[in-house]
C-alpha cells in the first residue's frame, strides 16, 4: 500500500496523522447515464445494487414522467455497465397509483439474484418487489410485499439466516416495521414494528446478523439488531447523538432543496464491523452553517459505538457542505462513500435558490481511520435549482445509492447538468484482487494473522525459517491462491506486498505459477527490505498466470539467506499480499 500523494486534498493533513497510508486507488470510469428514457422530466431518490461479479446492475430512482405521474424507474445493465436500459417497474394493476417511488434494490449472492422494489402511494398501494431476469434487461412480474395505503420510505437487503449459509432471507424495513421473505420475494410476512422513527435501513452481516438503523426524527441515530433472522429484536440503542437536528426541510446548505438528516449504514464482510455515516452541522462560519459527514463504528455487533469522527474533508474554518452520504463495503473490506459536496464551489450562501454541487466518491481501507483523496464524479458542479420538476423549491431526492459487485463500485446519483435531474453512475473498478487462501509452504508462523493479509492493517504475519526438503530451498515461503478473477487477460498484473525482515542478507523472490507449464516462474528477485516496505512486482505476460474460467492465480514469495546473517533468529514479516490488476 503506497502513501497517497493527496494532490487534491491537502486539507486532509489537518486531521489525519502523517503516518497514514492508503490503498491502491481505483480506476475511475466516466459518467454513464442510467436514466435514458426520454419520457421523463426528472429523477431523484436513488438506490442501487449489483451482482457478485459486477456484470448485472440495477439503479432505481423516482421518475417524474411527462404524463404528470411519478413512477419508479430502474436503470438496468447486464453487461457491466457498457449499455443501459431504463425500465419502469410497476406494481400489479390493481395496486398501481399515480405516485409510485422510493425505489430500493438488493442482491442475494447465494442465488445470484438482484431484487428491485418500490412503493405505490395511495389507498390501494403498498410495497412491490420484482427480480431482475439474469442476463436480460428486464424484471419478473412484480408482487406485492405489503398492501397498505400508508407505507413510506423503505429499503431492503438479503442474506443468510444465522447459522444457515445455504439459505436466503429477504428483509424490507419501512415506516411500519420489518417484513421478511424466505422464498425469494414471492410471499412476505406481516410487519413487525421497529418503533417510532424514519428512514429504517436494514443490513445483513456476514453471518446473517440483521441490523437496522434509523433516525428518531430528533437527535438520535438509532440502531436495533436481530440475531435470529428478524424474529426477536434488541431494544433501540443510540449509535450517535446529533449536534443539530432539523426536519425534512432545507437546512444550512446552498440551494432551496430539502436535506433531511437521513443516514446510512454498512457492514464489513471481512470483519463484521458496522459503520454508520451521517451528516450534521459542525459549526457556523461567516453566518453559514457547515454540514460535514461523521462516522461512528461498532466492533461488537452494535452494542457499543465509537465517538463519531468528522470526516476530514473540509478545513473547519472554511464554508462548504457534504450531505447525503451513502456507504457500502466491497468484499475486501473497502468502505466506499458517495455524497453531495459543495467544496469545489466554496463560500456559497445557505438557502439561495441556486446551489452548486458535485457528487464525490472516496474510500477508506480501515473502516474510517484514514481516507483516500476525493474523486469527483460530476464533470462540473451542477445547479440544484435546475431539477426539471417545475416546482417552487427544488428536490434532490433525499439520499444517494450505490451498487457493489466484485471489484466494481457503481454509485447512483443525480446531476442536473442537462437542466433536469438525470441519474448517472460511474464504473469504479477496485484494482485489488484478494487471495482466497494464504499459507506458509515453508516456515513457522510466530505471530500475527495470516488470514488478514488482504488488508494493510498493521496485523502482520511473521514467520521464522522452517524445515526444507531440498538443499538451497528457501526456508520461508508464502503461497497465495486467488480465485474468481473476472478479467483473466489484464493489461497489468502486479503483486502488491508490504514486507520486511529483521536482518541483512536475505533475498526475497516472487514467483507466479505458469498455467501453461505449471512451473513457478520467478518474476522478481530483490534484497529483502529491513523496514516495512511497499513492494510492487509487475508480472510480465499476465495471461500466462491466470487460469481462464476459474480465474485462478497462484503466487509464491520466498525468503532465504544469501550471505552472513547476523541475527540467527531472523524472521520475515508480511502485512499485505494481494494482486492488483488493470483492465
Amino acid at each position, binding site marked *: 500500500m503506497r502513501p497517497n500523494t493527496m494532490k487534491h486534498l491537502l486539507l486532509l493533513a489537518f486531521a489525519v496523522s502523517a503516518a497514514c497510508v492508503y490503498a491502491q486507488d481505483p480506476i475511475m470510469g466516466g459518467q454513464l447515464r442510467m436514466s435514458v428514457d426520454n419520457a421523463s422530466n426528472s429523477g431523484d431518490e436513488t438506490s442501487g445494487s449489483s451482482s457478485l461479479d459486477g456484470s448485472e446492475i440495477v439503479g432505481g430512482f423516482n421518475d417524474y414522467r411527462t404524463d404528470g405521474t411519478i413512477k419508479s424507474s430502474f436503470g438496468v445493465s447486464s453487461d457491466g455497465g457498457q449499455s443501459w436500459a431504463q425500465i419502469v417497474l410497476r406494481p400489479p394493476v390493481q395496486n398501481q397509483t399515480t405516485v409510485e417511488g422510493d425505489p430500493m434494490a438488493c442482491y442475494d449472492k447465494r442465488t445470484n439474484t438482484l431484487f428491485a422494489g418500490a412503493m405505490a402511494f395511495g389507498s390501494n398501494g403498498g410495497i412491490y418487489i420484482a427480480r431482475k431476469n439474469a442476463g436480460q434487461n428486464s424484471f419478473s412480474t412484480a408482487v406485492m410485499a405489503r398492501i397498505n395505503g400508508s407505507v413510506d420510505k423503505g429499503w431492503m437487503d438479503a442474506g443468510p439466516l444465522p447459522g444457515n449459509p445455504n439459505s436466503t432471507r429477504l428483509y424490507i424495513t419501512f415506516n411500519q416495521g420489518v417484513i421478511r421473505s424466505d422464498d425469494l420475494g414471492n410471499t412476505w410476512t406481516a410487519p413487525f414494528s421497529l418503533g417510532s422513527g424514519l428512514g429504517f435501513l436494514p443490513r445483513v452481516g456476514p453471518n446473517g446478523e440483521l441490523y437496522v438503523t434509523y433516525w428518531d426524527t430528533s437527535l438520535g441515530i438509532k440502531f436495533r439488531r436481530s440475531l435470529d433472522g428478524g424474529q426477536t429484536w434488541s431494544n433501540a440503542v443510540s449509535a450517535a447523538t446529533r449536534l443539530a437536528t432539523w426536519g425534512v426541510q432545507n437546512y444550512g446548505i446552498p440551494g432551496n432543496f430539502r436535506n433531511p438528516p437521513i443516514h446510512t449504514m454498512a457492514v464489513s464482510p471481512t470483519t463484521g464491523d458496522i459503520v454508520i455515516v451521517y451528516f450534521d452541522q459542525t459549526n457556523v462560519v461567516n453566518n453559514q452553517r457547515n454540514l460535514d459527514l461523521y462516522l461512528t463504528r461498532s466492533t461488537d455487533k452494535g452494542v457499543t459505538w465509537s465517538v463519531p469522527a468528522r470526516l476530514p474533508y473540509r478545513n473547519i474554518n472554511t464554508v462548504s457542505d457534504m450531505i447525503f452520504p451513502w456507504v457500502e463495503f466491497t468484499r475486501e473490506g473497502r468502505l466506499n462513500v458517495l455524497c453531495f459536496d459543495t467544496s469545489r464551489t466554496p463560500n456559497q450562501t445557505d438557502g439561495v435558490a441556486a446551489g452548486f454541487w458535485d457528487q464525490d466518491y472516496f474510500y477508506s481501507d480501515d473502516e474510517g481511520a484514514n481516507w483516500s483523496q476525493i474523486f469527483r464524479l460530476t464533470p462540473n458542479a451542477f445547479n440544484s*435549482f435546475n431539477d*426539471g420538476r417545475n*416546482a417552487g423549491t427544488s428536490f434532490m431526492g433525499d439520499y444517494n445509492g450505490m451498487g457493489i459487485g466484485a471489484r466494481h463500485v457503481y454509485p447512483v446519483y443525480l446531476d442536473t447538468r442537462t*437542466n433536469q435531474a438525470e441519474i448517472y453512475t460511474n464504473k469504479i473498478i477496485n484494482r485489488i484482487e484478494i487471495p482466497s487462501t494464504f499459507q506458509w509452504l515453508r516456515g513457522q508462523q510466530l505471530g500475527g494473522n495470516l488470514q488478514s493479509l488482504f488488508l494493510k492493517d498493521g496485523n502482520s504475519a511473521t514467520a521464522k525459517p522452517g524445515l526444507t526438503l531440498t538443499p538451497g530451498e528457501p526456508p520461508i515461503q508464502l503461497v497465495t491462491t486467488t480465485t474468481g478473477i473476472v478479467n483473466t487477460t489484464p493489461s497489468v498484473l502486479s503483486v502488491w506486498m508490504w514486507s520486511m525482515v529483521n536482518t541483512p542478507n536475505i533475498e526475497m523472490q516472487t514467483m507466479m505459477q505458469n498455467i501453461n507449464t505449471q512451473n513457478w516462474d520467478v518474476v522478481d528477485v530483490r534484497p529483502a527490505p529491513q523496514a516495512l516496505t511497499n513492494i510492487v512486482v509487475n508480472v510480465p505476460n499476465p495471461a500466462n498466470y491466470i487460469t481462464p474460467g476459474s480465474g485462478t492465480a497462484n503466487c509464491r514469495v520466498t525468503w532465504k539467506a544469501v550471505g552472513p546473517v547476523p541475527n540467527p533468529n531472523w524472521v520475515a514479516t508480511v502485512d499485505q499480499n494481494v494482486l492488483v490488476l488493470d483492465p
Partner: protein
Amino acid sequence: MTPRTFIGLGVAALSVALVWGLQGAAGKPHNTSRAGSLGPVVDDPKEALEEKRFQDATAGLDFTGSAVRVTAPVRHDRTKALAAYKAGERILATENVWFTAVGNFRDAVVADPSYAPAFEAMSRAFLLEGDVEHSEKALKAALIADPHFDKAQFSLGLSRQANGDYEGALEQWNALALRNPAYPDTYARMSIASYYKHDYSSAWKYLDEAQRRKQNVPPQFIPLLKEAAPRP
C-alpha cells in the same frame, strides 16, 4: 419518503415571480431560473397527495397563526380526548403513519383543547414527515394549554434551532432550566447552541453544567468546542 413541501408551497409563488422578474430585467434567464421551464408551476402529484393527507388529517384545526387553533366545535370531553390520544400514540409507536396519527391527535384536541399532551404528540407526528413548521405550531399550542409542559418546551427549543434561531432556542431552554434544572439534556443543548452562535464562554459554562449533571453531551462536540475556543 413522499416529498411534501407545505413550507415550499407558500414560497413557490414567490420564487417563480422572482424568477420572472429577474428574467424580464436581465433579458435572459438568471442563473437561479429553471432553464426552459419558466412557465407556471405545475402540480407535483406527490405534493398533491401529501397536501390532501394533511388537509384530511387537520380538518377542524387552523394553522394560520403561530400556534395551532381548534376551529371545530369543542366537546370538552377528556375521556374522548384520552382515547384518541392513546390511539395516536399507538400509531406513532408502531406504524409511523404521520397523517393517521395527526388525525387522532386532532380528534383529541377537538374533544378537549386543554389537553396539552395531544398537541405535543401532534408535533411529533408532524416530525415523522419532517414538517418542522406545523410541529412547532403544535408545540406552541401545547405550551398555551400548559405553560409548564417541560417536554414541549425542550422540543420547541430544538425546533427554533432547526430554523437557525439559536437565540430563540436558548430562550426556551433557559426558561426550562430555570423552572426544572433537572430536565434531561437542557444544558447540553444550550452549550451547543451557544457554540453555534460563537458565544464560547457560555458554551463552556453550559458544558460544565451539563457534565456535572451527567447529561448526554455528544462526545464529538467537545473537540469542536476546544478547537473553536480553549476553555476560558
